[in-house]
């Protein structure tokens, strides 16, 4: 029967010049076997390049209502699994994901579009006459896929939002217009920085928000769904 003394690992340890590198490598591998059960990712941190833009449309009042979480598996953003079988689940810091995404969209519209946008969780302090446009919607998909490549993780994020646009001037006359927004992002990480996994999903969401300006047009104080170009 083979014992530890017969194994090549033991002969490596006996060799003094190999002892330190082998022990270091073993330490790294053992540390890699430890997984935190749940990590809350910070999604609301926008890239630093994002700056205040002054727009001619800064009079537009837009209220963004909390999004409904319509994901099939709605508790977590994703999960990673180590080769030892240990799993880490990723959630969203800052509370309910529907609130977090609506807050992000309001901040995006405020900063990037220059609109007077706000997160309408409470009705306090709303301007007289209310908002020109109310955005509401649901989260169809907001997911993080983690592929384990040894010490490196390849991470891909997907976000799909269904946004209902309710214009004050046409409410009652028309149904709210609906646009579907998609965003994807990919990145790789050294596995010891899992808290940075919020980056790809934030970028996927920002890409989805950017689609809102591509798929809609602004007419006076209304946001209308843009008609697809006819070829």
């Amino acid at each position, binding site marked *: 029967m083979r014992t530890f003394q017969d194994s090549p690992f033991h002969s490596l340890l006996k060799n003094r010049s190999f002892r330190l590198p082998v022990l270091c490598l073993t330490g790294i591998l053992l540390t890699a076997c430890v997984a935190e059960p749940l990590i809350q990712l*910070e999604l*609301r*941190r*926008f890239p*630093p390049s*994002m*700056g*205040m833009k002054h727009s001619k449309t800064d009079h537009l*009042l837009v*209220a*963004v209502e909390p999004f409904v979480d319509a994901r099939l598996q709605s508790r977590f953003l994703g999960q990673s699994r180590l080769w030892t079988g240990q799993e880490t689940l990723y959630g969203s810091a*800052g*509370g309910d994901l529907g*609130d977090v995404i609506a*807050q992000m969209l*309001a*901040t995006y519209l*405020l*900063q990037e579009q220059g609109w*007077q*946008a*706000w*997160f*309408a*969780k*409470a009705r*306090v*302090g*709303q*301007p007289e006459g209310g908002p020109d446009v109310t955005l509401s919607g649901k989260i169809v998909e907001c997911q993080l896929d983690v592929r384990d490549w040894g010490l490196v993780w390849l991470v891909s994020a997907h976000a799909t939002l269904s946004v209902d646009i309710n214009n004050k001037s046409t409410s009652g006359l028309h149904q709210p217009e609906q646009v579907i927004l998609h965003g994807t992002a990919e990145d790789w990480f050294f596995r010891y920085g899992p808290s940075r996994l919020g980056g790809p999903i934030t970028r996927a969401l920002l890409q989805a928000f950017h689609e809102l300006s591509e798929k809609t047009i602004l007419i006076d104080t209304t946001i209308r769904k843009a008609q697809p170009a006819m070829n």
Partner: protein
Amino acid sequence: MLLNACTLAREPSNWMEQRTALEQLLFSQALNQSAKHLALPLPPGAPIVIEAVAPSPPTLVNMLRETYSNRLGALGMRIRKDEKHAGYLVRLVAETLGTEQGLNLLGLPSMQSALLPIASPEIALYRNEYIKAMVRVSLDVYDIQTGQHILSTPFYEGTKYFNQYIIAIFLGFRLTDADIPG
């Protein structure tokens, strides 16, 4: 002897003492830098009352509150003195708010002789004296009437540094990202 005298010191600022003009300047600019990209998605003209909490002395906390009040006022919020006339409570929570300084010296520090009434000057092959101001703040917003938590922002950060170097005893220069008068 020179290598034995190498020191690596890190000295926290003494809260009880008055800050130097340079520390005050770095701190103020770091605070303004943190507030520069502030965006709070609340209705325009919303009446708010501002609170600030930080593990720092009251003067710095007051300065934090005033800087962010100014910025939120510029964004269109109406700042109220008491909660009776406000719709939202905006609580500024600072993770860090202050300055720190340190010294790296490769050489011989100045020494006082025990026998003779003379002091030897510092002989610095490399000397780096640094001051760094750091601000990290997030905002939590509550509905005053119901106490409901409405939103929390990510951290807004600002840093400013001032490094003063001496190389080969005489060659001195400084590096900074702060706007220093004079």
